[in-house]
C-alpha cells in the first residue's frame, strides 16, 4: 500500500468517483484501489448523494456531465460542499467552456482534469490533494 493512501490513523483514505461511464469508472476504481485507496463508485447523482450522506470521503472525483441531459456534476459539487468542507473535489470534464469551469470552481471544485484523464494524472491529483489535506 502506498503511504499516500493512508490517513494519519492508518486507515485507507476513502474516495468517491462519480461517472456515468461504467468502463471509465471501472478503470479509475481499479487504478486507485491498487494505489491503496478505498474506492466507492456512483453512476448517478442520487447514488452519490446517498453515499455522501453516509460516508466521509477524502476526495470526490466527479464527471461534470452525469447524464445526457444535465451537468449533474455541478449538483454533486454543491452537495459535497453542503455536507462538508473537508472533502476535496476533482472535476473531470470533456468541455472546455470556461464559464462552466468557473461555476464549478465557485461551487467548490479544487482541481480540474480533462476527460479522458490519464490514470497517472488522476492518481497524481488525488495524491496531491490528500497530501495537501494532511
Amino acid at each position: 500500500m502506498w503511504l499516500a493512501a493512508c490517513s494519519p490513523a492508518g486507515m485507507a483514505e476513502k474516495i468517491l468517483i462519480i461517472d456515468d461511464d461504467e468502463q471509465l469508472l471501472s478503470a479509475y476504481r481499479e487504478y486507485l484501489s491498487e494505489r491503496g485507496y478505498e474506492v466507492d463508485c456512483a453512476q448517478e447523482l442520487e447514488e452519490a448523494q446517498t453515499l455522501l450522506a453516509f460516508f466521509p470521503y477524502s476526495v470526490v472525483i466527479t464527471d461534470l456531465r452525469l447524464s445526457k441531459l444535465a451537468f449533474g456534476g455541478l449538483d454533486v459539487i454543491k452537495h459535497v460542499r453542503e455536507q462538508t468542507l473537508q472533502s476535496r473535489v476533482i472535476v473531470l470534464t470533456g468541455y472546455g467552456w470556461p464559464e462552466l469551469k468557473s461555476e464549478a470552481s465557485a461551487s467548490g471544485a479544487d482541481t480540474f482534469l480533462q476527460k479522458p484523464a490519464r490514470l497517472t494524472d488522476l492518481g497524481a491529483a488525488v495524491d496531491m490533494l490528500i497530501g495537501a489535506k494532511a
Partner: protein
Amino acid sequence: MTSLLETIVDPRALSVCFQPIFEIRDGVRLIDSVEALIRGPRSTKFNRADILFDYVRRKRAEAAVDRSCVVAICNAAQLLPSHMRVNINVHAVTLDHRSGFVEFFKRHTKERSLRLERFTLEIVEHAPTSNVPQLIDSLVALRDSGVRIALDDVGLGQSNYRMMLDCHPQYFKLDAYFVRGVAQDAKRIAVVRSLVALAGTLESTVVAEGASSEDDLSRLAELGVTFMQANILCPAMPLEELQRLGHLEGAQASHAPSGAAVGMEMCVVAQH
C-alpha cells in the same frame, strides 16, 4: 448499463432478514410475529437498508421498490411456518397515490398462497402525506381484507398524531430513540407512559423497538408494554439462520432466552 435502481427493482437482487417481535407477559417470551427487513444487493454499500432506502427515496422510487420488496418477502415468507405472521414495511407514498398497490398486494399474496390475515403492513413515512383520502381508502381496503396496520417509527418525523388518527393503526411501533435507555430516563418513561395511555384510548397496541438492556425490558413491562422487538431479544437474521437456531419451532409457546443473539450472525437492523 444497468443502473442501481434497475438492479433494485428486481426482487432477486434483494434479500430478506426476519426479526421476531415478542409478546412478553409475566416474563414469558413468545414470538408474536416477525418483521421482514430488506437488504440490498450483496457486496455493495446498498446492502444496508438505511442506505438502500435513502437512495430509493432520493430517486422517488418508493412505490416500485416497495413492490419489489413485497415479492422478495413473499418468496421468503413461503418458507416460514404457516401460522407465523409477517410485518412488511410500506411507504405511505406507495399507498397514497393511485399505484394499485393494494390490488397488487392482494393478487401477489394469493398467487403465493399466503393468507392476507398473516400480514401487518407497517407504514413508513418520511415525507408529508399528500393524498390522505387515497391513503385512508387503501388502508380501509387492506384492513377489510384482514391485513393489520402498524404505524412505524412513532414519535419521529411524519409518524405523528395526525397519522395516528388518519390511519387508525392496530399497532404503534415506538421508535428506538424513545425506548433505548428508558430504564434510566424519566423523560423517556413519560413518553412511553403517555403513548401506552393513548394507544389504549385509540384501541391500538404499543410495540417498543430497540430496548437495549434487561432493565429496559423490565421497565417497559411495568409501563404496560407487552410487545417488544429488540436485538437483545433476537436480532434480524436470514430465515435459514432463525430456523437453524430453532427460533421458529414452537415459537408460539417457547421461552426465548435473553441474549439469544450470542453466536449468531448479526444483521444490521436498519429498518426502512
